[in-house]
């Protein structure tokens, strides 16, 4: 994991420094004379050799210290910490929506009619572009939903309630994908020999569902969820813009447009660290759920 994180730090630096752009010119605008821009480059350390810039950057990145924003000198670390709370809360609420959706799918799996409806639902959720569904849901919430003001901080119940529609939109695509995988996996598992044997033993459907079908279906779901997590994070860009949520996604977009290099680097490194940690946690979870993986690992 450490090797991966180091690679991310190197890649982030290289990526943002090979873009043909001039943050000093962006900072001072098109009317500023070249002398003033050159002075700004010097002040921001952009005139130093790339190797020296990388050394400073890497040294501070390992301490999670990304300096100050080029645009308004606000501390990057503070800003990222503030905004990541909103994005993390949004993501957790989206995960809850996904869990709820999958639970409903499990409950409905016995009925052929409801199974068809779930198939259609999955298809729609996967097909609708995030931007389209975000605008649609946002306009609907303005009309009918009572919680349309967000303080910027999660200090009251209304702030959390405000995030619900946005979390739903964020969860749409993963719900569709994971719903499909779950139903297919449950169908496969329910046709296995041991499930038929369990039925023949006279076990109740609920018990068979809990002890045999679900337990053997979870692993691919968790693996698929691990793949969906980066997508969840990138989808926050669109959702946060449409719903005007001050989170990491909207901050990154703003930083890219303003060429605020320290802010961009800070966001990318912190979110990649977060993603790595969650992926690691999922890896551990695989082993806990499936003893075969654990025993293979031990061997």
């Amino acid at each position, binding site marked *: 994991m450490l090797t991966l994180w180091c690679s991310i730090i190197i890649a982030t630096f290289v990526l943002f420094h090979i873009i043909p752009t001039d943050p000093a010119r962006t900072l001072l605008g098109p009317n500023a004379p070249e002398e003033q821009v050159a002075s*700004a480059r010097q002040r921001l350390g952009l005139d130093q050799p790339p190797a020296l810039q990388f050394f400073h950057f890497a040294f501070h990145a390992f301490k999670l210290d990304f300096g100050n924003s080029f645009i308004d000198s606000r501390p990057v670390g503070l800003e990222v910490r503030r905004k990541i709370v909103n994005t993390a809360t949004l993501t957790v609420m989206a995960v809850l929506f996904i869990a709820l959706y999958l639970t409903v799918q499990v409950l409905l799996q016995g009925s052929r009619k409801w199974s068809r409806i779930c198939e259609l639902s999955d298809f729609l959720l996967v097909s609708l572009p995030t931007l389209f569904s975000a605008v649609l849901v946002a306009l609907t919430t303005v009309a009918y939903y009572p919680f349309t003001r967000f*303080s910027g901080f999660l200090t009251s119940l209304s702030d959390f309630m405000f995030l619900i529609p946005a979390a739903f939109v964020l969860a749409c695509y993963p719900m569709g994908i994971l719903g499909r995988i779950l139903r297919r996996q449950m169908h496969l598992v329910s046709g296995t020999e041991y499930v038929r044997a369990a039925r023949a033993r006279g076990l109740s459907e609920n018990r068979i569902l809990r002890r045999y079908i679900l337990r053997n279906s979870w692993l691919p779901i968790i693996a698929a969820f691990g793949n969906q997590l980066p997508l969840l994070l990138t989808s926050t860009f669109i959702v946060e813009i449409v719903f005007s949520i001050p989170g990491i996604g909207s901050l990154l977009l703003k930083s890219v447009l303003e060429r605020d290099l320290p802010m961009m680097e800070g966001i990318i490194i912190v979110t990649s660290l977060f993603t790595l940690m969650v992926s690691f946690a999922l890896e551990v979870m695989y082993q806990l759920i499936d003893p075969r993986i654990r025993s293979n690992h031990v061997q």
Partner: protein
Amino acid sequence: MAISNSGSVERGKTLDFLAHQGAVQCDNDPLPSSSRRFNVLSKVSKKRRKSTKEVVGEPVAVLLYFMAIAVLFLGLASCSRQTSSADQIVVGIEAEPERFDPLTMKNPKNFIVSWQIFEGLLGLDKNGQITPALAESWETSDNQVWRFRIRQGVRFHDSEMFGSQSQSRVMTVEDVVESYTAFCSSAAYPAFLLMDSIKGCAEYNAGTANVVDGVRAIDDKTLEINLIKPEPFFLNRLTTAWIAIFPREAKDSRFKDSWGFNLSVGTGPYLLKSRSDTEIVLVRNPNYWDKSQHGGIVRLTFRVIKNDQVRLAELKKGGIDMMLLPPSLFPAALDPYGSLKNDIAAKFQMKVFATFNSHLLGINDLKITDQHLRLAMSYGTNRKQIVDKFFYGYADVIGGAVPPGMSGYVPAISPETLFNLEKARDELSRSSYRGEPLELFVHEQAVSEQIGQLFQSQMKTIGINIQLTKLDFNSVIGRIVKGDAPMFSMFFDYVLSSPEPILINLFSSTKRPVPNFWQFTDPLIDSELEGLRALSHEASVEKSAEIEKEIMEQAPAIFLFRLKQVILYSKKYGELSVNPHGYFRFSELSSAES
């Protein structure tokens, strides 16, 4: 007997597996008695029937559960939304607030907020005439040395930077000197407004001087500004709050991190009460110096709603009371004649004001050197079609850089003569153009891409091949400054309120590459522009029109239109006054009943 479904599976293995699962009785195990077997089987089939009922019943329960939640939310939504009273106003804004530090503020979309907190020495009324603000009078004998009498008794907003939250102090001439000095520093975004004007400002900016020689306090009431060259139009550089006066305590290291965020102290009619990334609240400044402003608005709330459609929906539902209508929402809010649609007109009124915001297609004269080709493009551009298609007529066609009305400016170029296909084809035939594609850079702001597409189709009709390249706005600026963009879409939000400095900055050869983005060079024009300094202000405004006409005869760029701003706001408020710089006089706004 073993029960097996597969039949083809190895019998022994299947039996062992099934036996392990307890599903069946193996051959080796004694069979249960028939009655017991029957009981087991019937028990199984009964359970299966029960679970089928449960499975059918559960979806209905789930559905009822979600319907209950929906009814609850609808019930909550049916409660009337909290609407603001007539002494408060909620404005929907598009952009997240930047740092309210006068030295670094640059997003014009935030000026609606920051210009309520900060003020400059001068202002502009709604007709574009200079008005006194923090300077109550001024004099000059040679247009080079200007003396401003600073208004006495003006207090800064209450702030902890003066000792405690409820303390303030009087603005002094030293604050003005320090503010102007700070605006000459290399970190100041608006430094370009002063660097080529005030003596010593460029040296201070470059770090070769410790003070700005041209700015000094004569006494405790008088500020003197010494210019590099005479400028009858100098006052027109100071008519916005871009050059704002702020307390010298702002430089204190104690306030380094909070200044511009939760701490923004000026002299304006409103002071900052609270601020987050989604909402900014300003309240009326009880100590404001201008007692003639009798408006009733005591509280201004600015809500950040980034998406245009959502902002309009919030306005219709009463979540906000006012918003600027962007061109992208014209089809949603206006009928084909440019009036408000009936459902919106029932509760809202529209205010239109002319801005100093000009849009153009720039041409790099060093890359497209053929003047006949440039003139062909200029004559072939149907500006009115662009204005009607994208702005519903809420823009004025212009043929030059200076918008009409600025300091009484009357352009010498008539808009009716600008579009002429016959002249366009004639100029094209005289040019050396042979059909090669001309690259036009467009970006995501100000309907640039759509204008570029329409321009492309207009040029096609006269035989000019335009190739569009879309980049983000800052990348386009970078290409322009480097001289890599043959043609580019651009707009100017002029903070100057007189034509002379605009023409000097945009067309003087000494101003290449910025802000003379088209690399225009003409020694005769240079000397004429310099000659404006020797005239009186009225004469120089008049002379500017002639010079602009001469410049446009060489078509250094294609100036398209001057934008008008459309504001939608609730009918519970009275008449709103906005100056051409986009300064909203909320302090003069009252309820419609008063």
